[in-house]
């Protein structure tokens, strides 16, 4: 497929918008955590501090500079990998985050590996046999999962798999990595919960994308020629639905960002989200900023990726 210049201009435009959004988002995060809480030096030193001590610390931390300069300095530090130091234990934020980020990415990666094939199979078969029992069960299940909070999905999973069936440990994250089954058990519960949350969205969108293609005249023509239902869907409809489906996958994976916050907290999983929730309760602002930026960047890149796939896969958008 030869893509014209306008396509690439559209792609470039979308990337530029993403970059602009990122700048605005980082400003919002910086503004919310640096300027809203009031005097950080006062917070750090407590109520009993003398005004001189507060003024000294303000100068030392560079808090007396204009907000816009501090924002630019913070942004530059972020780009160089200098994330600042934690208020609470005075360790470098980059060091605190390092391992945690790997853990979170592992969780997200495994969830993606499990949920994408499951959702594709369920979504496509629900669309293929629309109105069948399978379709109705899938529809009701996905709507139920979408309309309840993530922590409830987690609670139900624990009730079913740990309390009633007794297969898996309930709420503890076992750091035990001695055997394969131990690792499997440690990851099972968070992955199951996240898979439910993400798959529900993915199945719905996949089903909608396939059904939209099935409703086109050329697929109807295939049906009229006497093609079997599976051939009609898999050979005729599916190739043209691939773009929307890929778009749906990227979009639903962005639900991982919200889901991971809840799931890591419930299962006490040592990832970035747990770190961030803990940082919120201790009001450790530099740590919150960095974690928030990690989440925003991953969320934004998934949304941008979804849009780019939509642009590249849809000939009508190329003009």
């Amino acid at each position, binding site marked *: 497929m030869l893509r014209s210049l306008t396509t690439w201009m559209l792609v470039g435009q979308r990337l530029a*918008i993403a970059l*602009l*959004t*990122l700048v*605005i*988002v980082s400003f*919002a*995060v910086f503004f*919310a*955590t640096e300027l*809203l*809480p009031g005097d950080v030096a006062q917070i750090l030193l407590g109520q009993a501090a003398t005004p001189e001590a507060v003024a000294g610390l303000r100068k030392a931390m560079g808090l007396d500079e204009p907000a816009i300069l501090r924002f630019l300095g913070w942004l530059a530090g972020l780009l160089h990998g200098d994330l600042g130091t934690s208020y609470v234990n005075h360790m470098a934020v980059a060091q605190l985050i390092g391992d945690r980020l790997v853990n979170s990415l592992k969780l997200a990666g495994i969830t993606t590996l499990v949920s994408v094939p499951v959702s594709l199979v369920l979504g496509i078969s629900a669309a293929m046999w629309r109105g069948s029992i399978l379709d109705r069960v899938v529809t009701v299940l996905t*709507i*139920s999962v979408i*309309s*309840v*909070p*993530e*922590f*409830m999905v987690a*609670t*139900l999973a*624990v*009730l079913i798999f*740990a*309390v*009633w069936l007794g297969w898996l440990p*309930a*709420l503890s994250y076992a750091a035990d990595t001695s055997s394969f089954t131990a690792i499997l058990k440690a990851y099972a519960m968070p992955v199951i919960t996240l898979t439910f949350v993400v798959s529900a969205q993915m199945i719905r969108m996949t089903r909608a994308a396939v059904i939209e293609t099935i409703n086109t005249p050329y697929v109807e023509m295939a049906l009229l020629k006497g093609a079997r239902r599976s051939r009609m869907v898999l050979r005729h409809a599916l190739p043209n639905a691939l773009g929307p489906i890929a778009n749906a996958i990227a979009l639903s994976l*962005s639900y991982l*960002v*919200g889901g991971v*916050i*809840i799931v890591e*907290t*419930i299962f006490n999983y040592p990832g970035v989200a747990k770190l*961030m*929730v803990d*940082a*919120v*309760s201790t*009001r450790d*602002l530099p740590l*919150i900023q960095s974690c*928030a930026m990690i*989440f*925003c960047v991953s*969320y*934004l890149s998934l*949304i941008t990726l979804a849009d780019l796939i939509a642009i590249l896969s849809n000939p009508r958008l190329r003009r």
Partner: protein
Amino acid sequence: MTDKALSFRLPTPRNLGYSFNWVGRIGLLVILFWAVVAIIGPEIAPYPPGEIVNWDYFTPMSHDYLLGTDYLGRDVLSRILMGARYTVGIALVSVFLACAGGVILGMVAAVVGGWFDMILSRLLDAFNGIPSLLFGLVTVAAVGSSIPVLVLTLAAIYLPGSYRFARALSVNVNTMDFVTVARARGERTPYLILREIFPNILGPVLADLGLRFVFIVLVLSGLSFLGLGVQPPNADWGALVRENIEGLSLGAPAILFPSVAIASLTISVNMFIDNLPTKIRDRS
């Protein structure tokens, strides 16, 4: 067509195309039930919600304590009835703020157009790039959690989405002949927005408001579940699940019923909105 228009028909909801099917009716009933509970809940609660009434914690359902007791031995039924006021109340106020703000800005942007529209759209789209739960976490971290902060934060999270929706609808209405005529008559922008655009986007906007209400209930419960929403001794439903999380391995009713309450509210709003008469939902 003319026969139909001339024949005598009673203007009942069914004939006008405003009737609900039974799924929508069930949804509406559950919504009304929780709305009533949110208003009169504390008066009909069997015990004061904050009082320890039983020295036994996580007791199962019994005649004295219909839904059992929680981790301190407080009556779960009373706490759920009280929690309805927080969950439903906070979510309602925030959804009205979010939609009122979003719809007004959206209509103005669609009618005025030009730079105003472009800058506002870009800016609010950027805020859509922040995951909703994260937005809540960051503001709570910055200014601490209290009910006004929660209401404003939730409203701010969902304003951009409402803006986008209302703007898209208004742009469509704005190109219609009757708006062009009104403009040619020399009507001013406020008139165009209030009398021409607003009545024509009202139905879909109300449906959108319902869906946004569900999202807000979910994020509010999520925040409270993380311990960053409604603060003790008060508790909304999410906070009730959080404080009783240790009862999970016992399968205690104290953790089951607050979850059921949240699910019943959100699922029934979804059911209601999904089954709204198409005449209301897709008016334009």
